[in-house]
């Protein structure tokens, strides 16, 4: 049913790569500043990518459903 129609690559499928693009380059986020609410950048940046990854996967999921 659902996924069988979605054999080819869709534009939304590209979102699967986004968390890797933002988390693999460690030197980019390996800093203390800018801090938010006492949290150094290194920590809040990675925590932020948890919900953002859910969002990316949801976009892929919705894209395949249609």
């Amino acid at each position, binding site marked *: 049913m*659902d*996924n*069988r129609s979605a*054999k080819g690559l869709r534009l939304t499928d590209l979102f*699967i*790569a986004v*968390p*890797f693009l933002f*988390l*693999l380059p*460690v*030197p980019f986020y*390996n*800093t*203390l500043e800018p*801090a938010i*609410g*006492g*949290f*150094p950048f*290194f*920590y809040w940046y*990675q*925590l932020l*990518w*948890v*919900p953002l*990854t*859910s969002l*990316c*996967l*949801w976009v*892929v*999921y919705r894209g395949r459903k249609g």
Partner: protein
Amino acid sequence: MAKFDPVAVAVFAALFLIVTVMGFVASRWRKGDLTQLHEWGLGGRRFGSWVTWFLLGGDLYTAYTFVAVPALVFGAGAVGFFAVPYAILAYPILFVVFPRLWSVTHRHGYVTAADFVRGRFGSGTLALAVALTGIVATMPYIALQLVGMEVVLAGLGIQSDVMVPGIGMVHDLPLIVAFVILALYTYNSGLRAPAMIAVVKDLLIYATVLAAIIVIPAELGGYDKIFAAVDSAKLTLAPSAPGNLGAQSAFITLALGSAFALFLYPHAVTGLLGASNRRVVQRNAVALPAYSFALGLIALLGFMAVAAGVSTNPAYTEGFARFGNNYAVPALFLQVFPSWFVGIAFAAIAIGALVPAAIMSIACANLFTRNIYREYLDPNCPPARESQVAKIVSLVVKFGALFFVLELPTTYAIQLQLLGGVIISQTMPAVMLGLYTRWLHPRALFIGWAVGILAGTAMVASLDFKSSTYVLDILGMKVPCYAALSAMLLNVVVAYALSPVFNRFGRGTDATSPEDYLA
């Protein structure tokens, strides 16, 4: 010995009793014929999105994780936070790759990843390698769940050595009792027991995390004070020096390698295959990061423990002496939470040990029964006997783990679990690449697996089994890399290089067809 706290112990015991009852009652939940392996060992593949979310959350985020990750942050700082990118990057992999595994196993009645490898490549030997790797990697992991439980029992001040009339002094009696109860309801109810208990476990964990991130910073004067209390050199990773990529490379290879390994673990596969359809797997890849967020906050408990000064508090000297940094979180909870909430938080950790221990033992039992017993010892065994064998093996596995923890030094279990991550990664080509291609020859995959295991073990052995970050020398550049990842790359190269050679001499048959992976 921590002070015996009757209120905390009463709350703890009450919660433990509730989940024990649930464990036995679970056999009647979504009733199925438990004399069938897929009913006992996969819950009849009937779990919807919610139950699977709780089950996998309870399964993957173990008690040991909740103790060891903040312990690493407490001791080593930023590098311990690799658990967060790890627990993020695992999910795109889950989303893309594992619905295919769910579909093909559902189509063919496979119960384990090794069953799939058997069908895909027509090779019992390769399937045996995958099954044995799974069992060997999982055993020390079960043992570590017991360590997590041991830490909280000691934190509650529960006497571990009890005088039993007629028998004499029994060491670690509470731990033994807890594990016997766990073994019995797992035997009785199969995967339904941890699935039901996981709901309680996860709710307790979320409650504990929520309380911790509100109460503890309030007590310590806010997050800026907490981070300020930590040596600033530990707050970030050491920058790369010329000719050496350093800690940043170790950090990200640990995260990436662990992310690839996560869903190769038998307990993860068992949790996934219990899902009622492939959309459940995909929806869970979207929703499971909620646990990763909790894990990130739990990791920060390590810094809170630093700021609270638990290591210099004389009340916890003995705990630290016995458990090392693994005592940081229990000590922090004892210091800041009222007794009744200590009971809840410690119950969350202890029950957090029961759920994965149950699923891991079921997963090992499934592997043994399907890929060793039925494959080699009793090919014509009827389904009822298959299920019975699995139930008995689940008991054997648990008591093996118990023996391990009680009779051998804890460091063995920790070192073997470290090695477990390296060896389970070597099943990646057969399982994950196998979901996409049958071009790889089973003999080439087997040799790749063997080379990966040998290389990975040699790297970890050269570090005295204390670390799994082996420094590679790539064209004069020193690259610290998680041994699981470098060994896996070598494994893939070998498998691809040898396949064209073996493919000229023919191969086994593929029992699957392309549409099986999308059904």
